[in-house]
């Protein structure tokens, strides 16, 4: 459905952030994109959704195909209409709008306006807590509620592909679990394809059908979650486990510092 082939992204004409990034998201699946800070995960999502321009970024090489059509030269509003919706990192709700107005803003590109009312109720079924707060100013919601609103806003656009940038950011573990369950439900019930960027590798690998690991602007490893979970490097650097599967103790780290095998 979505394919990136050898994509290169440069910021401000000089900073090379993506260096030949390739990845594929098949229809109806949940694909996870993991990697440490600064690896280029958010840049990858922005390259797809057309949000690089306001940050002075540019796709300089390679191509991004969505349903067989090149989209990397189109602007954001066209890409949203095409069916790709990015839930940005850090929630980014419209603070001075109330919950319902935020959802209406999410439905901006819809052409079937008469269904919007019904879809708002649909979002409230996923997130009953938002229903109680429908008239409240979004800026005063809790972090978890704001993340729910951000995802609900994406649902309002009825996208074919939803890209979530670190939905677990700054949330309590229980809430994170709840949000991930809902992501899974959206994938199953709405048939929405999902591209998930996460720091929380364990949770992401639990829900994903396929996962990519990114470092330094390119993919270094990819595979089924089960395969990745048993990879020694992934266990060490993303799951914090040692060879036998027990939690690591600081003594081992001091004793022998493992190198990332894929870097050499």
């Amino acid at each position: 459905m979505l394919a990136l082939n050898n994509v290169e992204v440069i910021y401000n004409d000089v900073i090379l952030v993506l260096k030949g990034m390739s990845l594929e998201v098949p229809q109806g699946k949940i694909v996870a994109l993991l990697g440490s800070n600064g690896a280029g995960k958010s840049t990858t999502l922005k390259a797809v959704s057309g949000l690089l321009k306001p940050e002075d970024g540019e796709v300089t090489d390679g191509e991004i195909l969505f349903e067989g059509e090149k989209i990397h030269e189109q602007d954001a509003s066209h890409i949203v209409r095409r069916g790709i919706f990015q839930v940005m990192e850090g929630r980014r709700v419209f603070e001075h709008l109330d919950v319902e107005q935020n959802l209406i803003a999410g439905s901006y590109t819809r052409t079937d306006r008469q269904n919007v009312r019904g879809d708002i109720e649909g979002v409230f079924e996923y997130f009953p807590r938002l229903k109680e707060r429908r008239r409240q100013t979004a800026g005063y919601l809790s972090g978890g509620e704001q993340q729910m609103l951000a995802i609900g806003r994406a649902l309002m656009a009825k996208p074919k592909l939803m890209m979530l940038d670190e939905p677990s950011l700054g949330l309590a573990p229980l809430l994170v679990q709840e949000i991930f369950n809902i992501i899974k439900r959206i994938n199953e019930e709405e048939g929405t394809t999902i591209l998930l960027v996460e720091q929380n590798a364990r949770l992401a690998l639990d829900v994903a059908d396929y996962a990519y690991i990114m470092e330094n602007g390119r993919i270094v490893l990819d595979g089924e979650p089960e395969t990745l979970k048993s990879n020694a490097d992934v266990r060490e650097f993303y799951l914090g486990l040692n060879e036998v599967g027990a939690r690591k103790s600081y003594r081992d780290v001091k004793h022998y510092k493992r190198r990332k095998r894929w870097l050499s």
Partner: protein
Amino acid sequence: MDKFLQLTLTGLTNGAIFALVALGFVLIYKASDVINFAQGDFLLVGAYIMFGMVTQVGLPWSLAVLATMILAVALGLVVERLVLRPLIGEPIISVIMVTIGLSSLLRAIVSSIWGTTGRPFPPFIPNQNISIGGAVIPADRLIAIVLAAILLILFSLFFRYSREGIAMRATADDQQAALSMGISVKRVFGLAWSIAAVTAALAGVLVANIIGVSGVVAGIGLRVFPVVILGGLDSIPGAIIGGVIIGLLETYTGGYIGGGLSQVVPFIVLILILMVKPYGLFGEVRIERV
């Protein structure tokens, strides 16, 4: 008592016109965080276009108003396209500076076409007086109140319920997030500037109808600053209430204390408001989650 009623009515009409002009400020500020220093000159341009349409082209006044509104929309779009759009993403302060330059430019264009001497405005609103409870009020002022009220109600509804209105407020809140919704920020800015230009042009016509066409019309732009600061830069109800308060304040001080002071009092209010309530009476307070 008669004097009080008379002053109140005059103050209300002035307030209604202030509110119309303030509305333009608020619209642009709400959508793009820019304070438009050229708002007063939009009034001037509107007034002169109307003047030109009626006395020089010879259109009947209903068509002239329509033509003025269309040209005002065009002016708003041109300004947005040529002046503001290249500045998207630049610091707000540079955009504000550019609006000051725009103000001089518009004023210069108007005076190079029509000269600088003031002229009487062709009276298009029947110039008769209507008396309300002992006070006498000219019909044109009454029309100003009604028109201002209708426009202000329409805009309030637009921002609360319509998709475009919500998109405009969303853009004001977080431009990049608005982009990610598929909202076209360029379109939102174009819309804001053209609505602001139309309301300003209509206000300009109303003002010119009362005081005649001359450079003085643009001065209303400056007198509206205390209004928007008092009401809150981003609040439509604030623009209305601020307009009425400042309008009344001006006529009361003019009527009871003396003419010269009436222009000063609003600015005293401005300074007091900035000290006590920097967001204005109804302005949006920056939300900070702790």
